[in-house]
């Protein structure tokens, strides 16, 4: 008799330990009353979390408005095609021969770019005028050799915010990567 009870305990334990979702459905009705208070607390926490996110967003916009107003704002982004012919290692950006941004990539960051991510590399201020941007990418080609790819771009900064994307594109015709610069049309 005792062993029989013991076995029942074991059955419940095994089911509970191993398949949460199934045992959940089974015990939902019973647990609902008991968890009412816990779920209230969870809801309160959720509300607070979402308020934090909202405040974070508002402060970010306020910060950007104050530090990088649209009239002077310039943002530079980096994106990578599949990265078949060029494993990105670092990037260097100059505006009018002056270094403005540089970045060394970890494997994970490189993979994030290769999977379709776009990195905001630089956010700064520029006065109205004409400028020259130089981007130098360093990486390893498909033969494992260290290579550099560079591109130059002339642009005019007016009183609207300016966004430039540096794209590392795979060229299947010559099995090389090339830097393509795209100015976002806002």
């Amino acid at each position, binding site marked *: 008799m005792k062993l029989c009870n013991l076995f029942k305990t074991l059955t419940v334990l095994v089911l509970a330990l191993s398949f949460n979702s199934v045992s959940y459905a089974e015990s939902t009705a019973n647990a609902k009353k008991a968890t009412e208070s816990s779920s209230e607390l969870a809801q309160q926490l959720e509300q607070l979390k979402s308020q934090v996110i909202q405040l974070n967003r508002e402060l970010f916009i306020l910060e950007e408005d104050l530090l990088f107003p*649209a009239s002077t704002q310039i943002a530079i982004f980096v994106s990578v095609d599949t990265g078949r012919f060029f494993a990105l290692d670092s990037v260097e950006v100059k505006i009018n021969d002056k270094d403005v941004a540089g970045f060394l990539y970890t494997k994970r960051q490189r993979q994030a770019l290769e999977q379709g991510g776009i990195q905001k590399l630089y956010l700064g201020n520029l006065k109205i005028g004409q400028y020259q941007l130089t981007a130098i990418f360093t990486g390893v080609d498909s033969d494992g050799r260290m290579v550099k790819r560079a591109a130059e771009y002339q642009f005019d900064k007016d009183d609207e915010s300016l966004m430039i994307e540096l794209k590392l594109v795979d060229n299947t015709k010559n099995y090389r990567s090339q830097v393509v610069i795209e100015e*976002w049309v806002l």
Partner: protein
Amino acid sequence: MGIKVSFTLFAKMLLLILFSQATVSYGQSNQYGESAQSDDSKLVLQTDLQDKYYRQALYFYFQGDHQQALVQIEQSKAKLKRLDSRATLFAAGLQLSAGLLQQAKATLVNFDALLNVEKQRENSSNKSAKASELRLIALLSLSNEYLSQGEITQAKDSLASIESVSSTYYQEYHVLTQLAYWPDDSRLLLVKPISELDDTSAYILLNEALRLIETSQYDLAINALKTIKNNQWHQEEHGFWQTLFLNEASFSSQRDEQQMAILQGQAIQDYAQLLLAQIYISQQRYDLGFSELKTFPEQSPYAESALFLFAFASQQVQQYDIAFNLLNLHYKNYPYSQLGWQSAELMAQQVSDQQSLAQGVSAYQTVESFFLLRQQDLDTFSMAFNQSINLLDFSPSSQVSQHKPEGNDHYLPESVWLQQALYDAQLANLYQGVIAIDEQAQQVQSLLDKTTWLAEIITLNQARKKNIIAAKETRDTQNVFKQLKTERDRLAKLLNQQLANKQASAFANAEERQWLTRIARSHSALTQIADKKNTADYKQRLARVEGVLSWQLAQQYPQRAWQHRKQLSQVDNAIAGVTAQQQQLDKIANSQLSLELSIKKQQQSVKQLNLLLTQLAQLREKISVKIRQKVKLYIDEQGVVLAEHLLSTRQGMAKVLERMAKADKSLAIKLAPSAKLAAAEKVSTIAGTY
């Protein structure tokens, strides 16, 4: 003054103005987001900003930083005013992983409507195929959401609105339907998959087997479990959306992912094997249960349960040596588990049944001291836990700091009692809540620091603005600017005149001008001395010089005329630039609004953040009280179970001693009647102490 000199001066003045206005870099602007498009740019294809912002969030997501990805998508929403269906679904997935269930639910509820709007806008079949896939994912996620909150009816409604399911999502769909209709058979309600499935997945089969066990259809359940056990299961490849909504741990390499897939496949098979053995044992087919568990892997996550079942089955098939060793091993390996405690008792019972009574007493004594030790442990744990002020500081495991899971922190205590208590999902959730509160408080604190910094920037901006207004007033730039424009117009008029006259000397340089002056002077000198001296030779020479100079000027004329026109257009451009800056400056000087708005926003944020900190602290306190209640309940329960085991052990021991007394008594009667009484008394005394 020649035109060239005037241009040089003019350019210098422009530079001066430009320099004075360069301080505008921190000026206020509220133009962000307003799409003030020029006529020219309307012709250019607009960049798909939804895609660009979405991919910025992806950059963080693929690095495993889900929190930052969510922040990024929220910022994109604020900038773009709305998100497209893809980004909305992505946001919902991130919200789910951040524990924002209500928000995710709201996002997913609106998703269907958003998708319909997009479907109407784009008639491409490819897009609509994608849209239906996204709709399916949304409905599955919503059902999952309802199920996790116990809202079964709503979950059923969501599942019922699914019209078609591709094979990729069929497993999730099947499992969710089964959960929604548990324990009823939901197979007839299922929508058929679009494409033929090559085989049922292990999860579907396992769920099916569990349903069959629940409805006592053991033969069918055994067949299903045997299939799971004997087949080789390969992990289905999960697409991006499945991975996002399943919230699977992100792996640093493909090898790790494959390794995990193998382990998961093995775990499913182990579980099937365990269930199979359990059915056999419940049907009293102990030999089958025994042979099933004989090959159970030692490293399986279900080893504890399997070991116990195996020991029990061994006893039933009279493999006593194996049973003894297994029970001994079990209670020593799992000294804090209830199965372990049962093993200890079973072991003592078996010893007293199978071996000598003296050995039985000794085994019971060992088990008794084992339980006493556990009780002592439990008391110590209870006292230490009650004395702890910060729950997360209580018995933290060193493993946590070394192998901190990326993105999602879990509290792993050193104390085995608390580890056991945390098997309770509610308690684990409460602990997770405390961790989340601490994280949020940390984030709020960093936001407060940011507001302090923003206040400093605002002060700096105010000072700059004040300086700009003051400089504007003292310099009277408007007047200077007006003068410059007048001067430009005068120069333009002059240039036009010169160009119209086509007078080559108009664009002479300083040297040539000197020569022209000298020639004019020579002409006048020759005229004065013409009566006194023969000047024919001089005049001839002068005419030659004049001729050469005129020829040179005529040669240079087109180039110089072009240069001047070019300089004028440069001046025009510079004026246009200065005008734009001037307007910007005026705008900044005249509009108090944007800076005041920023001050207001900053002050509001500080208030809200302080309020949030207070609310977080209050909530932490509430959750801590709840955790303490739950842990106390757990301790009491364990105490009761331990006391029961101790009592039952002592009863078992008393029975053995009684048997010993009886045996001694009968022996004493056989040996000597006089010794009978003394021996019986001795045994009774020993038994009485227990």
